[in-house]
């Protein structure tokens, strides 16, 4: 199923950040969001994830998406195994997915460790494993490789490729090159003009 986004207007807090975002992403493809800091990549991803309702435009049902942000959604007081098992239960997937995810990110040795006692990169690996556990076809990734060492980045690229080959799709924001073949979308094109950044309902009323 294509991911079709048309004329999406995205907001963050009280400001309108992006306007008129449109693209089509066929299954099996990845889309890399490009743009400097503050362009609106995170904003777009949060909107697609259904966390911030769009101001205008159409986008696919967030029910199909899995989101990985800066915060990993791991509970510090639970072990990695418990964390993954929790998300699997919530998303209604099973033991098979957990094992696949743990294998893919080499979490075997960390299985019984508390998330609080992991290094930044180890935590991030567990956070990415959560994506596999959700079993959702559309991945929304916000700087997924932060803190990962080279080996882990390669691992992640392999997982991504497998996901795409299986007909999944992914939209990712990143500043570094992952070595994955991906369409590019330059977010700067859609940045809202500054007079539109605020839809102030009282603008004409006062002046």
């Amino acid at each position, binding site marked *: 199923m294509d991911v079709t986004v048309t004329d999406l207007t995205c907001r963050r*807090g*009280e*400001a309108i950040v992006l306007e008129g975002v449109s693209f089509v992403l066929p299954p099996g493809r990845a889309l890399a969001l490009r743009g400097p800091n503050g362009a609106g990549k995170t904003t777009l991803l949060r909107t697609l994830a259904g966390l911030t309702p769009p101001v205008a435009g159409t986008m696919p049902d967030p029910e199909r998406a899995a989101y990985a942000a800066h915060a990993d959604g791991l509970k510090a007081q639970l072990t990695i195994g418990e964390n993954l098992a929790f998300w699997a239960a919530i998303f209604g997937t099973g033991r098979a997915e957990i094992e696949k995810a743990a294998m893919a990110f080499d979490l075997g040795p960390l299985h019984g460790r508390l998330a609080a006692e992991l290094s930044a990169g180890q935590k991030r690996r567990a956070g990415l494993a959560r994506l596999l556990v959700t079993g959702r076809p559309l991945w929304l990734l916000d700087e997924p490789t932060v803190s990962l060492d080279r080996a882990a980045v390669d691992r992640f690229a392999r997982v991504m490729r497998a996901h795409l080959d299986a007909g999944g799709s992914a939209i990712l924001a990143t500043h570094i090159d992952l070595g994955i073949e991906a369409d590019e979308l330059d977010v700067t094109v859609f940045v809202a003009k*500054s007079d539109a*950044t*605020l839809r*102030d*309902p*009282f*603008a*004409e*009323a*006062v002046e």
Partner: protein
Amino acid sequence: MSVWEYANPRRFMAVSGRLLPWVAGAAALLCATGIVWGLFFTPEDFRMGHSVKIIYIHVPSAFVAINAWFMMLVASLIWLIRRHHVSALAARAAAPIGLVMTVVALLTGAIWGKPMWGTYWAWDPRLTAFLILGLFYLGYIALWSAIEAQDAAADLTSILCLVGTVFAVLSRYAAQFWNQGLHQGASLSLDAEENIADVFWLPLVLAIAGFTLLFLALVLLRTRTEIRRRRLHSLSLKARLA
């Protein structure tokens, strides 16, 4: 033309600007007449003596304090359902007025309580329910001022207002259940004329009408202020984001 047209900010500003002097004038007139009449041209009550005259402030302010909350409830509902920004700001504008009226009613009640009951304060159910209403006003205002994003603040305070209304009513009932009070029953209320001499009743009604109009005028005024404040907020936000 539908009523909702007035929820258009520009129309609201225009209409309210024209309306305001009239409402304020009428409020001043009615308040003055009611209070002056009540204070200087009514006989003294045989039981309460001179102190009965505080009723011309006490009852109207209490009346407005209660009904201000219901006005906020209606405005909150309009905001939640129809997303008219003016109504959200009107609810916000009404809250401090309601709080002040509550405080006025409490203070005049307390002052009156000293000669009547021999104490400034008693845990009478009526008074208690009123104090609780004051707490709801406080919470509502605190929530508004704690949240930076204006639309989110409007949403959250509206939800609070809905839930709060239910619990304010429940509290009032609970307070009645909890203590049989000293406070007057509805003996002096509007629908019970037979219990009260016309000499007291008429100026009281005038004063209540005056206070209601006063409330209306203040809400209009403060809503206009809120609209300007909101505009200022947007401008400074825009300046920051630029």
